[in-house]
């Protein structure tokens, strides 16, 4: 991964450290503005668009986790879909009712179940770490693919946990300290807009995404991120410098799995059903692993904001296309041979991967950095 790996943000900011002061305020203002917009959106968009936005946030959380592993720590993984399934199943089982004879449930409160699902995924990631630690590059990529196939089998056979491929099982509705994220509960209105399921779900997902984002940028900037990059760039040199290579690699795998687990729990809440795949091309299949890899590559390996933008493209495009197509009369064909929003967005992200590798290995992050570099230079000239 070394050549596609992006230059660490520190290096870039160090180069332009002189005119950084005014830029920092601009940047902060931009973040605040973005946050205000995101908080206000539910007041203006209807439920279908909010639902689409939630799906993009699922992608963002998962992609942030993968970009830490692939871009920062230099470990190629195709196992992301497996940890997605682990998180989804974890949440559903932990929060499930204890009195259902058909499936297992532990009856925990949803917020505890969500945390439990994340922890469970991290533990599973750690369990795979000894294997991951021994392998490198493509060998690791294909080895991690075996987890997806294992997940496919377990999803089919562990019906007590997953509900089986034919019916699946319903997850417990999420609630926070008794406040439900559905249509029930206390009625809240902001500016005349009632906060119902779609709006509440949006705020929940937004909060989770922001936490995921902040933790990841913190990790990248801090000691942990430095050790990951050291291991990525040269294992031998890293260990000479006192970085525990095994620990750094295992840590990256666990963190990335935890992110995927959270994304999985979000997925099951989004679909409102846990349904394991019948073939390897389902909700938790190879195609999903590849889609996450696509987000990360398009965003620029290792860049956290890049991963979010990649997720907006890969997960957002099919959603947006299908919402627009109803109005525009696109994709009216049905059955075999028809173009569907999912298909079109597959083409787009497939092409995006190719273009990124050919022309801008740093991905969207590098393009963004180039633009900021240019504006900074302009500011310098103006002064």
């Amino acid at each position, binding site marked *: 991964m070394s050549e596609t790996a992006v230059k660490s943000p520190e290096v870039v900011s160090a180069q332009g450290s002189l005119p950084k002061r005014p830029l920092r305020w601009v940047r902060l203002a931009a973040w605040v503005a973005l946050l205000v917009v995101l908080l206000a959106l539910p007041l203006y968009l209807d439920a279908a668009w909010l639902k689409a936005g939630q799906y993009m946030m699922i992608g963002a959380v998962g992609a942030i986790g993968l970009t830490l592993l692939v871009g920062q720590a230099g470990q190629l993984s195709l196992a992301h879909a497996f940890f997605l399934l682990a998180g989804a199943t974890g949440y559903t089982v932990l929060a499930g009712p204890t009195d259902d004879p058909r499936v297992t449930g532990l009856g925990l409160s949803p917020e505890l179940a969500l945390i439990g699902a994340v922890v469970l995924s991290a533990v599973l990631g750690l369990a795979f770490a000894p294997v991951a630690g021994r392998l490198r590059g493509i060998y690791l990529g294909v080895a991690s693919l075996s987890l997806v196939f294992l997940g496919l*089998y377990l999803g089919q056979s562990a019906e007590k946990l997953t509900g089986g491929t034919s019916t699946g099982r319903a997850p417990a509705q999420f609630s926070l300290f008794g406040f439900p994220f559905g249509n029930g509960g206390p009625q809240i209105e902001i500016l005349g807009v009632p906060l119902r399921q779609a709006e509440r779900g949006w705020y929940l997902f937004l909060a989770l995404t922001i936490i995921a984002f902040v933790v990841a940028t913190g990790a990248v900037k801090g000691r942990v991120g430095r050790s990951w990059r050291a291991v990525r760039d040269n294992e*031998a*040199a890293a260990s000479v410098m006192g970085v525990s290579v095994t620990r750094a690699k295992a840590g990256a795998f666990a963190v990335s799995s935890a992110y995927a687990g959270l994304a999985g729990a979000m997925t099951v809440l989004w679909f409102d059903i846990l349904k394991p795949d019948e073939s390897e091309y389902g909700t938790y299949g190879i195609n999903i692993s590849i889609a996450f890899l*696509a987000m990360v590559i398009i965003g620029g390996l290792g860049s956290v904001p890049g991963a979010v933008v990649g997720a907006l493209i890969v997960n957002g495009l099919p959603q947006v296309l299908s919402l627009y197509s109803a109005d525009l009369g696109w994709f009216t064909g049905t059955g075999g041979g028809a173009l569907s929003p999912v298909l079109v967005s597959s*083409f787009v992200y*497939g092409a995006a991967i190719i273009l990124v*590798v050919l022309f801008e290995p740093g991905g969207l992050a590098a393009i963004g950095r180039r633009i900021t570099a240019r504006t900074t230079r302009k500011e310098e000239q103006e002064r």
Partner: protein
Amino acid sequence: MNTFLQLLVNGLGKGAVFALLALGFVIIFKATEVVNFAHGSLVLFGGYLVVVTHEALGWVGASLVGVVGAGLIGLLLERLLLSRSRNASPDSLALLTIGVDVIITEEIVRRLGVTVPFLGEAWDAKPFQLGGITLFRTHVVALLVATVLITAFTLAFKYSDWGVAMRAQAENREAAALMGIRSSRVTATAWLVAGLLAGVAVLFIATQDFSGAGLSRGTHSIALAAFPAAILGGLDSTAGAVVGGIVVGVVEALSAQYISFDFSKSAVFLVMLVVLVVRPSGLFGTRESTRV
């Protein structure tokens, strides 16, 4: 005992096809150090050409078109995309092939729609008995064809100019270039040969005896099982590809019978995982060493 023998024979037949696919991975990897994630889509492309030309050309003609077409698309990919990014690392080129794979596969699956045509018309679903064992013609023909092709390849690899150039390049790219070996030509032929092998393999994969299904998205996922075959044999070993292919075929056949059909797909990957834990670069792969 008879069941076991039967399974072994079936596994060998399937394994021969996996070996053809794995050999494709290995050839490309040896020449370029790129892992071709688009191999499954080359398989589908070849199969699709057979389906399209079948009516006009008959089975023999259509199969030829399919095999050659798969080879040419491999060559085209190398010329149009991979050769243009000389400075990109092999790993990022592998990621590029993922993009290629998504596009080709989605388009062909879309074109196929709901039809799942069978391709091995000449031998499909005509079993015959031999000493208490039922032999599927698909498996027998696959075994024969694979043996011939792999032997031919091994001989060419050892004795022909192309083989020498290829081995030189695999050993040390720069030195080979300095000795006057045209590396772009070696690389291009590697992709061509890998594509041809994929085109042959699909004629066996999309049959009733092999998968029970015709050409569909499932064909692509079967081709994915050649991944563990190539990896567990060792990505840079041609002999490893053959061994890996057979291991995958036999493991799949045995686990489908003795454990469960659903498990057989993951069994292949689990066996690969075990091999990798013991030998991180496969059974016959060259160990990577770090110099400090």
